[in-house]
C-alpha cells in the first residue's frame, strides 16, 4: 500500500494523520492538535486544538476545538513525541494570567525588530522589509 503513495512532501504527511502535531503559523501562533486531514496545499484539519503561548519559563493553553488552516499560513508542522512531552521543563499557568506578559513580550520584540530594521536601512544600506510574515 505504501508504494502507491508517491514520495512527495505532501505524500510523506500520510504518516502524521491521526497523530498529535504542532503547527506554527506565519503570524507566530503555535497550535497543538490532532491532524485529521490535509491536501496538496497543506490545508490542514486539526481536531481538539489548543493554542499555546510562551513567556519566560512558563506556557499557557487556550482551547480552540476544530481548526481548518489555510496552507499558505503554515510555517511548520511537527509531530509531538508523547513520551517526551511531559518532560518539558516549563510550568503551565493560567492563560489569562500569561496573556498580558505574552502581549508585552510580543510588543517589545516588535519594537526591537523595528529599531533594528531602521538602523539597517538608514545606516547600513539594506533595503526595507515588508509587513507581517515577511520573515518567511
Amino acid at each position, binding site marked *: 500500500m505504501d508504494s*502507491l503513495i508517491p514520495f512527495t512532501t505532501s505524500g510523506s504527511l500520510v504518516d502524521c494523520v491521526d497523530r498529535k502535531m504542532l503547527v506554527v*503559523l*506565519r*503570524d507566530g501562533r503555535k497550535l497543538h492538535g490532532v491532524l*485529521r*486531514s*490535509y*491536501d496538496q496545499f497543506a*490545508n*490542514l*484539519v486539526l*481536531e481538539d486544538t489548543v493554542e499555546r503561548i510562551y513567556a519566560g519559563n512558563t506556557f499557557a493553553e487556550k482551547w*480552540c*476545538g*476544530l*481548526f*481548518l*488552516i*489555510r496552507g*499558505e*499560513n503554515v510555517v511548520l508542522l511537527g509531530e509531538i513525541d508523547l513520551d517526551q512531552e511531559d518532560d518539558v521543563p516549563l510550568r503551565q499557568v493560567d492563560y489569562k494570567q500569561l496573556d498580558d506578559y505574552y502581549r508585552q513580550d510580543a510588543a517589545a520584540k516588535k519594537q526591537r525588530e523595528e529599531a533594528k530594521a531602521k538602523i539597517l536601512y538608514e545606516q547600513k544600506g539594506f533595503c526595507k522589509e515588508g*509587513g*507581517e510574515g515577511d520573515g518567511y
Partner: protein
Amino acid sequence: MLPLSLLNAAQNKPMVRTLHNFLQERRNVNGHLVNCDNFMNITLREVYQTNADGDRFWKVKECYIRGSTIKYLRVPDALLDVVKEDQTRAREAGKGARGGTHVGGVGRGRGGARGGPPRGGRARGRGI
C-alpha cells in the same frame, strides 16, 4: 475527507469563525457559512466582525471573503461527526442504485491500473 470537502459539508451549518487578513489587518469574522468554493472563497450571513485587538465590533448582514485572505477557519467540533454520517449515507445510497458488488469491483480495478509494472510494460512495447 479533505479539508475543502469538510468546508463544503459545513455549508448552511451554524457558526464558522474565521480569521483573515485584509490590508495587513487581522480581523475576526463570525457567522453562518452560506457558501464556499474550491478557492476557499466564502460567503457568510449574520456576521459579527471584530478588529485585531478585539475591542470593536461590527454587525454585518452578509459578507464575502476572498479565500486568499483567510488564515484559518474554526468550525464546530460536531461537524466531523456530521460529515462522517453524511458520507456514509451517501455511500449507502450509491450502493443501492448501482448494486453493492459492482462498487467493490470498480475499486479493485482502479487499484491495479495504478500499479507501476503494467503501465511501464505497455509503454515499452509501444516504443519498439
